[in-house]
């Protein structure tokens, strides 16, 4: 019968003579092991719950605090609007500076990642990789200071300087992720391509990058999310601006994180509440990108 339970079946199969050792009562040792096992499971489970608690708390708290002022006017008016100030200046600023920063860091970072994964000797790749890791760990305010002391000192505060500062922060993310996804492309594909008489540069373009394109897109999206959430690089560079600035990269410009920071310091309940509303928008966009990337990365692996 197909439905015979496992234990019955095995009893039928194994001849049990008098006292099979398998049927003896569990020893004290075995019982203690079972208890410890249960306890460890519970503790590990609790730890897992605790790790996701902060995320849920952040989302819940931010939404609760920011929802009242999250209106259509909030999304449609710049902060400079005297009747009904909103955050359009910040939303528009983020959507200009971050893509521009992605153009800078993405183009340069992709090339650097390709160099590290495909062309550098192992020792060089390791040394460069280490430097990139250090760069990845540099506090983002230092990136802001760097751009402040060079670009801003020369030409003044501007959205362009803000983009450059963001690019400095995003660059190592692109390099590292690109390098990693390119290393996942099996060497056998490079060999197959080279053996067809396809030159190295073309092998990299039409075989390696093409195979890893999903991963490359992931690298760019992760960098975008990173830049989107950064405040510190913009503090001394783009500075922020209450007026809506579209297209004037030579002037100051706001961004969502900057808006949150600056509004939260204003002596008005309304403006502080607007900071929370901006935080909702920021959180939603960054989480969305992260969810899309993580969801993709399951399919993004190279087979």
């Amino acid at each position: 019968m197909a439905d015979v339970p496992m234990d019955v079946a095995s009893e039928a199969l194994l001849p049990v003579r008098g006292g099979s050792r398998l049927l003896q009562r569990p020893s004290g040792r075995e019982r203690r092991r079972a208890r410890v096992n249960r306890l460890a499971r519970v503790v590990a489970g609790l730890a897992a719950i605790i790790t996701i608690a902060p995320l849920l708390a952040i989302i819940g708290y931010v939404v609760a605090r920011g929802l009242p002022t999250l209106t259509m006017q909030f999304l449609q008016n710049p902060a400079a609007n005297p009747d009904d100030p909103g955050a359009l200046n910040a939303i528009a600023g983020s959507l200009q500076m971050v893509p521009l920063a992605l153009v800078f860091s993405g183009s340069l970072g992709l090339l650097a990642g390709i160099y590290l994964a495909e062309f550098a000797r192992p020792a060089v790749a390791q040394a460069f990789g280490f430097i990139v890791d250090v760069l990845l760990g540099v506090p983002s305010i230092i990136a802001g200071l760097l751009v402040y002391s060079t670009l801003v000192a020369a030409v003044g505060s501007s959205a362009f300087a803000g983009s450059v500062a963001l690019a400095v922060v995003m660059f190592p993310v692109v390099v590292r992720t690109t390098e990693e996804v390119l290393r996942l492309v099996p060497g056998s594909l490079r060999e197959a391509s080279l053996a067809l008489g396809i030159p190295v540069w073309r092998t990299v373009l039409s075989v390696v990058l093409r195979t890893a394109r999903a991963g490359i897109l992931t690298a760019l999206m992760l960098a975008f999310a990173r830049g989107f959430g950064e405040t510190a690089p913009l503090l001394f560079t783009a500075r922020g601006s209450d007026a809506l600035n579209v297209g004037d990269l030579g002037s100051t410009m706001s961004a969502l994180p900057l808006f949150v920071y600056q509004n939260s310091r204003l002596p008005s309940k309304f403006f502080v509440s607007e900071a929370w509303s901006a935080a909702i928008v920021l959180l939603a966009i960054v989480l969305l990108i992260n969810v899309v990337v993580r969801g993709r990365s399951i399919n993004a692996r190279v087979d």
Partner: protein
Amino acid sequence: MIPVMDGPAAGAAAGPTGALRLEGVHAFYRSFRAVRDVSLSVRPRAVTAFIGPSGCGKSTLLRTINRMHETIEGGRVEGRITVDDVDIYRKGIEATRVRRMVGMVFQKPNPFPSMTIFDNVASGVRLGGVNRRHDLELVVEHSLRRAALWDEVKDKLREPGTSLSGGQQQRLCIARAIATEPEILLLDEPCSALDPISTQRIEELLRALRTDYTIIIVTHNLQQAGRVSDETAFFTMGEDRAGYLVEFAATERLFTSPTQRLTAEYVEGRFG
């Protein structure tokens, strides 16, 4: 009796024949010598098998023939290898050009996963400047037919190459390799990852292809060497761990009456 093929001189007059000659070839990985002093003349338009125990350098030697050995860090070749009497390591000869004339099929089928069946076959040809849709279609169909795969894939050319079975993937790789119209085809243990039926199909294919290509197959499988090859080269490893050529002869002769003790022991299964 089939008459013995014409010598390389006669062939040269009639255009390329895929005549391959190795003269005193050594292959190195940095300072380590993996292949020592191999000289042999491969019969054009025939199947030659390279056999020998693991580590005897037969794959390394194979990779010197299409200049793939140098793609490995520290890979270096000494000696002379000529294809239709032209030294492929001569200064000024691009490795890519050699590789288009000497195709290669690897141990594990390696179609490009990001490309369709069609694009896989067309990948090498596109580089040669063939980009007109119609021309590509002709090349792809011809190559797939030659690789005995056309009937199985003609209705799904737009599907990824990796959607095929292992044996089909390997024939796809053969189609991809012959699409660039090489003179010589190198196969590095092409059946070791395949089941017996797929193996048999590849072997039949090799017998059919040898009228157009000079084929060299590295194999661990002595029966396979016996079944598909016209000539066999037996390699083994010396005390310095460098592989060297022990005996090179018509396959039947090598298997039935080897002149070297080592060959006899190997084909009788006493070592390796």
